C-alpha cells in the first residue's frame, strides 16, 4: 500500500462492510481515548495527525527504482497509544480524501481499516508484548516498536489481499497476489521499521515521557527546593496507561489471527492457492519479491495437501519469520546504537 485504494477498486458490498468496520473502530477508539483526550486536549491528537501527514510525504528508496513512504500506524501507536492513534490515522485519511482528493470517499472505510486499524493494532500489541520480555527501561521501546512497525506493514498487505479475495473486481490468482504484496511490503516494512526506530530513539533521547507505550517504565523525579534539600516524587500519573499483566501471547495472537485468518480467507477463494515452486507468471511484480524463490513462495507450504490450511500456515509462518528477522535487526540496531553513544 502506501497508496490509497481508490473508488471502485473493491465492489460495493466490501466497501460498505469495511466502512462499517472503520466506523465501529473509530467509535470504539473515541470511547477508549476519551479520558486521554480530555486531559491532553484534542490539539495534541490533531498535531500528531498533522505530523503523520507531513511525514507520509517523505519518500525513501525501496529498491528497483521505486520508493515507499512511512504509513506511521505503528509509530503513532507507540507514541500516543493505540486508540488515539486509530483516531489520528483516520483523521489523516479523512483529510487526504476530502481536502486533497487522495483516496476514494467510498473506499475511505477500506483505507481506514487497512492503514488506520490493522497497522496500529498489530504494531501496538506486538510492541507491548515484546516490552514484556525485554529489559524494563524506556529504551526497550525502540527495538520493540521497530519489530511492531516491520510486521505491521506486510500484515496490512495481507489484509489487503484478503479483502481482494472477497471483493476484488477481477479474478487473479491470489497466491501470486499475496506473494507479491507481502514480499514487496516486507521491503516497505523494513523502511517503516528503520524510520520508526530512528524517530523513537530521537524521542526517547529528548522527551522519554512522551512515549505512550513506555510510560509505565518511567523513573521517579528528584525535586530540589530553595535550600538545596532534595525529595523524590513519582512523575505525573501516566494517562490511560494499560494495566500491566498482559502476556506476550496477546500481541502475537492478534498478529497471527489477522495473518492466518486472512490467508484462510484468501485460500478459501475458488481460485485458491496454487503452491508450485515459483514458476507461475505474475512476472513483473513477483520478481521484485524477496521471497519469490523461498519455500513460502506462492504462499502455500510445500508438502501440505490442504490448500486452505497450508495457506493459513504460510501466512502465520511468514509473520513469525518476519518477527524473528525484525528482532535480529532490532538487536543489531541497539548494539550499534550503544557502541555509538
Amino acid at each position: 500500500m502506501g497508496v490509497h485504494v481508490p473508488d471502485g477498486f473493491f465492489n460495493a458490498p466490501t466497501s460498505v462492510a469495511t466502512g462499517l468496520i472503520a466506523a465501529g473502530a473509530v467509535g470504539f477508539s473515541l470511547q477508549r481515548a476519551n479520558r486521554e483526550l480530555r486531559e491532553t486536549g484534542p490539539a495534541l491528537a490533531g498535531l500528531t495527525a498533522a505530523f503523520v501527514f507531513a511525514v507520509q510525504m517523505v519518500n525513501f528508496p525501496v529498491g528497483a527504482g521505486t520508493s515507499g513512504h512511512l504509513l506511521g500506524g505503528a509509530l503513532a501507536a507507540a507514541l500516543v497509544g493505540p486508540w488515539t492513534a486509530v483516531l489520528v490515522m483516520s483523521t489523516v485519511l479523512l483529510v487526504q480524501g476530502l481536502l486533497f482528493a487522495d483516496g476514494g470517499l467510498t473506499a475511505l472505510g477500506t483505507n481506514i481499516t487497512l492503514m488506520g486499524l490493522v497497522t496500529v493494532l498489530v504494531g501496538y500489541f506486538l510492541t507491548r508484548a515484546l516490552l514484556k520480555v525485554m529489559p524494563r527501561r524506556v529504551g526497550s521501546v525502540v527495538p520493540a516498536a521497530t519489530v511492531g512497525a516491520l510486521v505491521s506493514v506486510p500484515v496490512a498487505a495481507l489484509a489487503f489481499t484478503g479483502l481482494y479475495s472477497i471483493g476484488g473486481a477481477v479474478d487473479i490468482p491470489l497466491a501470486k497476489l499475496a506473494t507479491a504484496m507481502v514480499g514487496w511490503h516486507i521491503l516497505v516494512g523494513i523502511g517503516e521499521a528503520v524510520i520508526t526506530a530512528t524517530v523513537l530513539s530521537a524521542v526517547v533521547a529528548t522527551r522519554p515521557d512522551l512515549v505512550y507505550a513506555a510510560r509505565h517504565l518511567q523513573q521517579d523525579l528528584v525535586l530540589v527546593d530553595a535550600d538545596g534539600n532534595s525529595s523524590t516524587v513519582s512523575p505525573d500519573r501516566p494517562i490511560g496507561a494499560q494495566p500491566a499483566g498482559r502476556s506476550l501471547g496477546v500481541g502475537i495472537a492478534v498478529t497471527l489471527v489477522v495473518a492466518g485468518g486472512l490467508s484462510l480467507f484468501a485460500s478459501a477463494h475458488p481460485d485458491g492457492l496454487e503452491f508450485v515452486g515459483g514458476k507461475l507468471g505474475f512476472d513483473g511484480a513477483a520478481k521484485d519479491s524477496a521471497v519469490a524463490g523461498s519455500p513460502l513462495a506462492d504462499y502455500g507450504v510445500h508438502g501440505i495437501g490442504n490448500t486452505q490450511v497450508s495457506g493459513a500456515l504460510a501466512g502465520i509462518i511468514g509473520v513469525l519469520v518476519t518477527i524473528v528477522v525484525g528482532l535480529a535487526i532490532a538487536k543489531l540496531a541497539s548494539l550499534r546504537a550503544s557502541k555509538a553513544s
Partner: protein
Amino acid sequence: MSGDGLLVAVESPVHRIPAQVKLVALFIFVLAVVSTPAAVFWAFGGYAVMLLAALVTAKLPAPVVSRRLAVETPFLVFALLLPFVATGPQVSVFGLQLSQSGVLGAWNVLAKGTLGVIAAILLSATTAPRELLAGLERLRLPATLVAILSFMVRYLSVVSDDLHRMRVARESRGYLGGRAGQLKAVAGGVGVLFVRSFERGERIHLAMQSRAYTGRMPQLSTHGASQSQWLVGLAIPLAAILIAIAARVVGL
C-alpha cells in the same frame, strides 16, 4: 503543503453550495458510480459528462484538475497489469495474450477510480477547509473527531514548514550521505519534528486552557442549508442514481 487543501478561490455557484450538501452529493454520486456494472459503457459516459459540466460551472482550471489526477498513478499501474495476470478466457490483442476479465477489470478500476477522484477534486477545490469542517459538524460527525480534524488542518502548513526548514538546513550543510545515511538523517529529523509537534500541541492546550477551555469546542457552523440548496446540490447525484439503476436493468 498548504493549509487550504486544493481550494481554488473563485466565485461560482458550486462554491456557494453549503459544504454538508456537497459532502452528501459526493458520497451519493460515487456510490452510484461504484455500483454500476463495468460493461455498461454509456453509463460512465453519462457520469463523465455531468462531472465535466460541474467542473465548468465551478470555474476550475483544467491544469489543477489534471495535476491532481496524478494520485491515481499507482493504481493505474495495477490496472494495466490486470489483463496479464487475471485468469479466465484469453483474447489476443496485437499479438498479446490478454485475459478478457482482466481487460474489463482494468477498465472498471480506471473508470470508477478516475470518476471518484474528479468528484473529490470538485469538492476539495470548491470548499474552504473551515466550511468542510462545519459541514462535517452539521452531518453529526462526533465533536471530538471534528476538533482533531480542525487542529490537524490548522497546523498542517505549520508542521510541513517545520519539516521543510529542517530539510533545507540539512542540505545547506552539504549533507551527502549514501542512501542509508540519508534515510537515517531524514528519520532523525522526523524524530525531532515529532517532539516539536507534540510540544506545540501541549502549548496549544495550555493556550486553550488559559482561555477558559473546559473540554468542549465552540460550534463552527452557524446556519443550515436551505431546501433549494439541497435540491441544486443533489441534482447530479440523483441523476447518477437513475443512470446506475438504468445500467443495472440493461445489464440484466
